[in-house]
């Protein structure tokens, strides 16, 4: 009896199962199709090249299609770590990063704190103006500063001579060139960073400040004890971005203005990779240095992300 009663249901179920919609039969199909264009592109242009860089770092090769790729094992890494050039470039990378932090974090934070009451029309105009360098292409920024800092005819040196001092060779002096490039890199970012901090400050509850003021807190105390902790996520964000990308932002200026010189004094790791790869065609060295860079900055990035998550999770 039970079988007979079941039969119609089974008969009905059979064709229905055969005609189950595609989405149920292959639940992965639709998501895959939606993801395919983006993932395909990134796989071809980022992930696969990373694997290929890893492979090439064990070979000696000069980029010529005819030339053989010779497997050399870990030799590229060994040689690199013994090279004084690499040590100098790593040290310079550190200088770029540390030099940028005042321009991307400390100064913008100070300006944003000191100008936190500038609102309304005037505030909007300042905001629009100080953001302009962010719009300008790095190559343009590079040639403008090359002109401004020119030792003979540049306007900066005209001013320096005007007050009776000798002209400064900003980009040709091995002791100064790196700091000039740090300044130029920071010039493009300082307004942007200031606005990031200003945006974080406007979200602060003003009644909290009033209460502190009524309790007799000085302006300095209010800044240090209320504003700074509340803008901590912005500080961490800009700090992490600067540490991870600062040396990379400088690449354009190095390539256009100094080509790593004078005396390698402005060469950082990114520029060294570029030189090994496309000036000396030492593909093994370039890719091996690239892998080292990737690993070091990858670890730094993991710390950075943890730091960002923690600063965001703070009670506000």
């Amino acid at each position, binding site marked *: 009896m039970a079988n007979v009663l079941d039969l119609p249901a089974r008969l009905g179920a059979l064709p229905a199962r055969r005609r189950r919609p595609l989405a149920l039969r292959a639940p992965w199909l639709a998501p895959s199709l939606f993801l395919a264009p*983006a993932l395909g*592109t990134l796989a071809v242009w980022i992930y696969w090249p*990373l694997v290929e860089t890893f492979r090439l770092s064990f070979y000696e090769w000069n980029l010529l299609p005819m030339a053989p790729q010779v497997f050399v094992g870990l030799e590229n890494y060994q040689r690199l770590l013994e090279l004084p050039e690499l040590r100098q470039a790593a040290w310079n990378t550190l200088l770029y990063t540390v030099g940028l932090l005042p321009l991307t974090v400390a100064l913008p934070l100070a300006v944003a704190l000191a100008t936190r009451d500038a609102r309304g029309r005037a505030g909007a105009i300042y905001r*629009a103006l100080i953001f302009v360098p962010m719009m300008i292409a790095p190559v343009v920024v590079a040639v403008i500063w090359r002109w401004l800092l020119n030792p003979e005819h540049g306007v900066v040196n005209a001013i320096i001579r005007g007050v009776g001092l000798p002209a400064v060779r900003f980009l040709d002096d091995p002791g100064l060139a790196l700091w000039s490039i740090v300044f130029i890199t920071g010039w493009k970012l300082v307004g*942007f960073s200031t606005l990031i901090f200003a945006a974080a400050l406007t979200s602060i509850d003003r009644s909290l400040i009033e209460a502190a003021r009524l309790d007799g807190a000085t302006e300095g105390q209010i800044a240090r004890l209320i504003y700074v902790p509340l803008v901590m996520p912005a500080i961490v964000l800009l700090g992490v971005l600067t540490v991870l990308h600062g040396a990379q932002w400088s690449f354009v200026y190095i390539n256009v203005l100094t080509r790593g010189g004078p005396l390698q004094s402005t060469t950082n790791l990114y520029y060294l990779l*570029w030189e090994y790869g496309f000036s000396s065609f030492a593909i093994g060295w370039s890719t091996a240095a690239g892998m080292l860079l990737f690993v070091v900055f990858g670890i730094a990035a993991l710390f950075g992300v943890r730091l960002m998550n923690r600063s965001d999770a703070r009670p506000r």
Partner: protein
Amino acid sequence: MRAHAEPTQSAPLGPPTAWFAAARSHALLIALSLLSLLPLYWMIVTALRPENEIFSTAPWPENPTLDNVRRILDGMPLFRMLANTALVAAASTAAQLVTALLAAYAFARWRNRWTRAIFGLLTLTWLIPAQVIMVPNYLLVTSFGMLDTLAALILPHVASAFAIMLLYQSLRAFPEELIDAAITDGAGNWHILWRVIVPNVRPALASLGILLFISSWNDYFWPLLVTRSPDSAVIQIGLQMFFTQEGNQWGPLMAAASVASLPILAIYAVLQKQIVESFLHSGLK
């Protein structure tokens, strides 16, 4: 309790402190504005100077002229380069918006461990500097026979993790009831995406589009790697070529720099508020 005792003390102090703070604000912001704008002003002034005034430090040329623009037009295919740049920027922006929209939809619509894992993988591209993968990328372009073409400039930028992550934020905030209602109505994914979601996230798409266009217009590293001839160069590379050849021709060089910046500055003049907001919202690219 103390709050009741203090106001009499702080009130007389109030106005002068406020006045001082306001004056200090303005002074600081004016100084920062000047620091931001004077270099650009000097670029434009130098571009307008005739040859015999080029080393002058007067704030405005006595006889402003467009000679310098004419001189770069003789030396390099300036309009061709601007057109190349506009084409590359427009094409890669449009492509990135479409691929990011599709991917962000998938991440928002199907939330399981697979899509979460893939999303995690995507965010990792943030950690891979262009210089680390430049050699394989270069080899790929040469193996396609695309060296020195505009296609080589566009293809790697058909999709970006940055665009996907930003759009995903907007799509995740999209009310799920609307999507559920559309599903109950029997709407397919394609329909939901283009008819239900896209009309509602237009502002997010627009600001992402502006961001992508500007960063593509100003891009330097990738074009530097795959461009060889002036005819297929974008304006940034054209500027670099001109600089390498005639580094001390300050007038024409500043004219070229001004021309390279004008389109973006024009866009900024019109959409200033949206642009600043979308940059601040997205962080640095």
